[in-house]
């Protein structure tokens, strides 16, 4: 806001909202909690399986590496090891998948103070690079058909967990709840 525009920029709107489209998916959600608290929750990557719809498991390998198992079409899964490339406590975490990932991807999550004391703006930017071929196409469909909606849903679940201590569900019985999560 109020920054000098770069030569290819026409306005202050984020590049991810360009009418011409954008390679990256970025979504911002406001969470009514301090940014350090949200950063710490996210930095413990194994926590994220709770809020990310498609994630089966996240195993922490060491301080910078975590192994992700994610649902894929037809009941299969895809896996990759994610490496933290930048880590600024309370502000930013960036990652890239290591060599050999089923679905190469990279991204960053940023935490900024929301104006007016409304908590934290959390912005997730994710880039997927699905493999070629038939399987690649199916995976691409899954990850990229409406990746902004998936990102928004995941961020909403993060918001629910941080603001209310639980993730909203309309399930009436435990069996229904279990079914929804699989």
């Amino acid at each position, binding site marked *: 806001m109020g920054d000098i525009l770069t030569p290819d920029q026409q306005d202050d709107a984020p590049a991810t909202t360009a009418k011409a489209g954008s390679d990256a998916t970025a979504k911002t959600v406001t969470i*009514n909690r301090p940014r350090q608290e949200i950063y710490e929750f996210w930095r413990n990557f194994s926590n994220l399986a709770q809020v990310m719809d498609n994630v089966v498991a996240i195993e922490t390998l060491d301080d910078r590496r975590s192994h992700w198992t994610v649902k894929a079409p037809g009941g299969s899964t895809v896996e990759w090891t994610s490496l933290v490339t930048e880590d600024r406590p309370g502000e930013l975490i960036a990652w890239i998948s290591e060599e050999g990932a089923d679905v190469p991807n990279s991204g960053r999550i940023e935490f900024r103070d929301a104006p007016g004391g409304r908590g934290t703006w959390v912005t997730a930017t994710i880039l997927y690079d699905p493999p070629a071929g038939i399987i690649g196409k199916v995976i691409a469909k899954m990850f990229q058909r409406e990746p902004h909606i998936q990102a928004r849903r995941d961020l*909403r679940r993060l918001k629910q967990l941080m603001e209310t201590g639980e*993730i909203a*569900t*309309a399930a009436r019985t*435990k069996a229904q709840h279990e079914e929804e999560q699989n």
Partner: protein
Amino acid sequence: MRALTWHGKHDVRVDTVDDPEIINPRDAIIKITSTAICGSDLHLYDGYIPTMQKGDILGHEFMGEVVEVGAKSSLQKGQRVVVPFTISCGGCFHCEKHQYSACENGLPGENQEIAQTLYGHPMAGLFGYSHMTGGYAGGQAEYVRVPFSDVGPIVIPDGVDDDKVLFLSDILPTGWMAAENADIEPGDTVAVWGCGPVGLFAVQSAFLMGAERVIAIDHFPRRLELARCFGAETINYEESKTYDALMEMTGGIGPDACIDSVGMEAHGLFADNVIDQIKVSTFMGTDRAHSIRQAIIACRKGGRVSMPAVYGGFVDKFPLGAFMQKGLTLKTGQTHVQHYMPALLNAIMDDKIDTTFLISHRLPLEQAAEGYRMFHDKQNEVTKIVLKPGMDQAQPA
């Protein structure tokens, strides 16, 4: 358990379904003792609300006894509670501002997209009112799972009859907020379109807030009679021309504040209404909206329009010119029930507000489908049906 389930237009049935269970730590399970059929349930019954699924349990006006609590519920087993129809978390920006119906966390993540697309933002969850509002099972049942039970339900003191407090769940706060949104000033004349429960509570509320006169508009004689009991003057729009009558009854000034408590299913064969009906049946528009148009045209210059009535989608021929030229203010919204419950409970306990006059029929839950039929077909005689799951089937009152 037994529950009233939706199967399609004019097809609701009492079925046996699985009992609800505690899922999240802030949940509670309530054993229903009284649950009402709301006028807005008729929108579901008539098939106007999208995203309904066969088997959905209806009902968003209910109360009962706490029988099970999650680890983080503030309720205790055995307490009697009235449950607000809005499912709100209490911790988000909007809940902190007491805008509970705008809660950001009441809807499951996967249900938020529909409202995001239709309205620009997701709203609070609602009990028993389609999947767009969360897909939560409603309270026209023996038991219900209540999420965020530490924020919503209000505990009722012992010895207070269900019938006196049941309407804290929706229609009493809705009628109150409708009057509050009309920013009533002493000396005001307030016109209320629709003398259903919300309209009748708006009449009572408007007087409590200092209105000098209230003019109630409907076409059911029984409902107009009830409005008259609370001191309102009345217009039967089948007998009189509403706009002309309002002008004559206000010396040409028009009502200072207008409250539309009719909403999507405006009755009456007015020209614009007929066009709306054709459009609704051909999916060209979703809301029939004669009453809000008339409220805007009749309202005095610089006046206030309050719209508690439920509108779901788009409407055309909105008199935007009259709205702008006369400098009107319009306030509306789903009710922030949790905000109003404590003060209204006190008003009931102090006998300042009467709610029991409304109940025309009490039925056992097993006769719920019959109740819907009656409410739909006989809106003159049937002002409010309360279902009592524990009631002896042989003895409906």
